[in-house]
């Protein structure tokens, strides 16, 4: 039975929460249901981690654990296939943490809290479903489930030029998923040489039957399809606008988890299934992602809206993820996953803080703020920590991730990779520039607006959200080897597939 598989509960719990929310009467119940849902999910995530580690420790060396297949659409041999490896486990944990923090960050959502949380949970359902699935169809389905709630979340609860942003974001991401759909169906029809077509990732990889000329066509489709979600240049413009308009928790979830779907999909589908094209075409996308990294960082330097700064910073950091994935070696890919985790947590933290600050000052323009450190020390310190984590301070996750990426990228000794890597390295300096610029303008210095003196510091649920995230960021940064070991082994099949060519 499907219910015997632990993984399915990552979808069941959000759906149940959704159902619970549907019958809620007032905001207290809504909060209670959401908190319960998020807590149970968190517990489940930790339980999964423990189980996973025990199995691995017991020497179970399967590529994926907790696998299960349930026939779904028999004529096309589409199965609901579940399974996780270390990477999925890490991503699931990340999602749990961010959903958990997101619930607290949207504590006082107004108006229509119930509807808000329902969409929020629908989005989460999609995210979790994506990470537990190992068949193309289910992954794609959950991927789209995760996208569409963004429209309403931004459109209804957003701020600023929200209609435009929401529409742009949805259309661009859906445009990407259009390419993706073509790619996935194409992969499906070439998944097997002997006519037993399949959607299961592992089987496709095992069959390794996609003809090379088709790989050249399908690889860009899938890579760009996921790459747009990973804010790859030049398809990143949905990100700044979208983030700027989205409400706090949505930005958190979006930058924290949803953008990770892009990176995860890129290597789980595009690279894993089409290693030949990945080897041959990687350079094109390396250039694009390399541009993303530097371009995002430079663009962030002159923005004045906090969320824009952070969105461009996300472009830069997510570009780093794709960049590392395309380096096609274990170390760099490990770095990419670390960067996903790290960026997810950091950006969520950032957006949470920005939301809290915006909720008080009602402006996100850094020119109109100043000296907030004196007024709201908790948020100020939180922001400084987030900033330092973002610019890659040792002890926080960003440093570990970036260093792993750089060491991995440096394993390529040719000039092309070297130049790109060094270019990407410069981003860490530029990151420092824009982060310190914001911190200096907004938090330090004399108080800019006397009205701000009356503002209050964070309240308990805000503190709770912020501290949760900071602890995770620092935990990842201080004990990286723990996470490293979880994910490190998972790359063996991919590297093997790549090496086979």
């Amino acid at each position: 039975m499907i219910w015997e598989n632990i993984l399915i509960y990552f979808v069941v719990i959000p759906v149940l929460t959704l159902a619970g929310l549907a019958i809620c009467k007032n905001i207290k119940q809504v909060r209670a249901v959401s908190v319960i849902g998020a807590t149970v999910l968190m517990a489940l995530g930790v339980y999964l981690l423990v189980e996973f580690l025990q199995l691995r420790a017991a020497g179970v060396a399967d590529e994926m654990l907790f696998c299960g297949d349930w026939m779904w659409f028999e004529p096309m041999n589409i199965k609901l296939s579940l399974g996780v490896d270390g990477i999925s486990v890490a991503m699931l944990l990340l999602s749990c943490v961010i959903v958990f923090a997101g619930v607290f960050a949207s504590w006082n959502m107004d108006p229509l809290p119930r509807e808000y949380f329902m969409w929020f949970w629908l989005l989460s359902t999609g995210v979790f479903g994506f990470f537990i699935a190992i068949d193309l169809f289910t992954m794609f389905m959950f991927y789209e489930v995760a996208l569409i709630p963004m429209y309403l979340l931004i459109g209804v609860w957003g701020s600023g030029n929200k209609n435009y942003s929401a529409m742009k974001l949805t259309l661009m991401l859906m445009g990407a998923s259009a390419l993706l759909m073509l790619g996935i169906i194409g992969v499906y029809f070439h998944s097997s040489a002997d006519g037993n077509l399949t959607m299961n990732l592992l089987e496709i990889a095992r069959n390794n039957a996609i003809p090379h000329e088709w790989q050249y066509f399908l690889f860009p489709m899938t890579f760009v399809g996921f790459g747009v979600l990973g804010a790859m240049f030049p398809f990143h413009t949905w990100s700044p606008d979208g983030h700027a308009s989205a409400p706090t928790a949505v930005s958190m979830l979006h930058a924290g988890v949803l953008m990770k779907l892009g990176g995860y999909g890129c290597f789980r589908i595009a690279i894993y299934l089409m290693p030949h094209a990945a080897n041959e075409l990687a350079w094109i996308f390396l250039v694009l992602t390399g541009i993303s990294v530097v371009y995002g960082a430079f663009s962030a330097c002159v923005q004045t809206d906090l969320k824009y700064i952070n969105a461009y910073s996300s472009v830069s950091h997510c570009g780093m993820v794709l960049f590392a994935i395309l380096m096609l070696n274990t170390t760099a890919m490990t770095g990419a996953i670390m960067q996903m985790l790290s960026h997810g947590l950091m950006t969520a933290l950032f957006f949470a803080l920005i939301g809290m600050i915006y909720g008080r000052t009602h402006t996100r323009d850094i020119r109109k703020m100043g000296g907030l450190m004196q007024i709201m020390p908790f948020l100020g310190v939180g922001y400084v920590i987030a900033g330092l984590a973002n610019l890659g301070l040792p002890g926080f996750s960003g440093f570990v991730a970036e260093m792993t990426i750089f060491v991995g990228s440096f394993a390529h000794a040719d000039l092309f990779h070297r130049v790109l890597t060094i270019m990407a390295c410069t981003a860490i300096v530029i990151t420092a520039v824009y982060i310190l610029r914001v911190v200096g303008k907004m938090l330090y210095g004399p108080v800019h607006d006397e009205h701000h003196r009356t503002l209050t510091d964070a309240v308990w649920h805000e503190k709770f959200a912020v501290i949760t995230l900071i602890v995770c960021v620092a935990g990842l940064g201080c004990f990286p080897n723990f996470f490293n070991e979880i994910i490190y082994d998972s790359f063996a099949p991919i590297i093997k597939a790549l090496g086979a060519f």
Partner: protein
Amino acid sequence: MDYSQFLSMPQEIGLVAVFLLVFLYDTFMSKKVQNALPVFTCVVFGLFTIANVFFCEESCSIFGGMFENTQATVAIKAILNIGMLIVLIQSVKWANSEYMTVRRGEFYELLLITLFGMYFMISARHFLMFVIGLETASLPLAALIAFEKNRYESHEAAAKYMFTAIFSSAIFMMGLSFVYALSGSLYFSDIAAMIFGESSTLLIVALAFVIAGVGFKLSLVPFHLWTADVYQGAPTPVTGYLSVISKGAAAFGFMVILVQVFGSVYTVAWKWMMYALIVLTIILGNLFAIRQRNMKRFLAFSSVSQAGYIMLGVVAANEMGLASLMYYVLVYVLSNLAAFGVIGAIENKTGKVMMSDYDGLRSTNPWLSFAMMLAMFSLAGIPPFAGFFSKFFIFAGALSTGDVALYVLVLIALLNTIISLYYYLLVVKAMFINKPGENGAIETFKSACSERLAMIVCVLGIMLVGIVSCIYTYLVDAAETSSALFNIF
């Protein structure tokens, strides 16, 4: 003649029985119980629909092969029945309105007759049968379109429909005469055998005329121009009916004709003809839809572009294409009728049909806007709603041929889904995001039970038809039993 042949067509007989019951009720029952006619029709037709699922004969071929029932025809007829039932339930309120009192019997009778015609379109394996079915299906529709006596638009729409329909059937029959000249037969299978290996100019012209004739019913660009005006002018239940049922039947019939009759010129001719038509249909349908502000007109253009997607199943020309086509029709029936259900409910209550009237609908009528949103998401192909699955399968169907050209076609279609998503989201935006206009949002009202029932059916369908995979599996089985259609490939 062997009259027992009629027993092999239980669905048609059942439908005639329903028709007769409604007719008798209408004619002979007293004035007092006349008001119950709509409900009576719904119940009788509902029983018929259910019975249909359980008691349907296996494949048979009767009248010397002019009429054929296979599992696929049974399935598509069942799908149309479901759509019909929903339309019937939706129209109860409308049919009970004041000026309809004397004529509601006719309304139902005409509707049932058109469905009867469509049955014949679907099962016909002979062009005479097909033409009769086609005309039986389209003539009463003109009367239905003109049903709202006091509304000018209704008559303008009827006139537009009728004139263009006759014109197109003239073209269609002209094409048939050429086919007849080439093959000397009107049996599908005989024609196919006769024209095998031929690709004369006359055949191509005949093919183009046939495509134009049926393309008219499907509203493929450039044969679609009547669609928007007629949808806008017709009474809303009739629009719903036009947009899904007649389109579904025509799509199936179209596929049968193209595959069975003209299968031999698939690669040289009609694949590319359909290719062009699909591209035009999807793109122009979408472009027209962007600017529409009248909901019915908007859905008209949306249905034009949807027809393009349906045609992807035709152009695949294999079992999977057929199955995906039927599945798409089913999902399309549910989604579009959900949308028309909402539009009809609001129109019945307030007479408002503009998109701007829907501003802020969520705050006053959350359930209606919820149903509408689901309908829009399903039409746009957003998971986990049925529309996602139908789109996925229709694309997969088109790509299952492995033809590179079709990859390009699917890519074009996929990119167009972005435009379609845009305008579907406009409706969602109006309801959920926009602030009510100066006159305020449409006031809160309680829709009629019948409307709600229809909407619940549609909503459940939208949510479940995709995820519950046995439906698709069944349709694929059905399509595979019709593999005789694809002999020529």
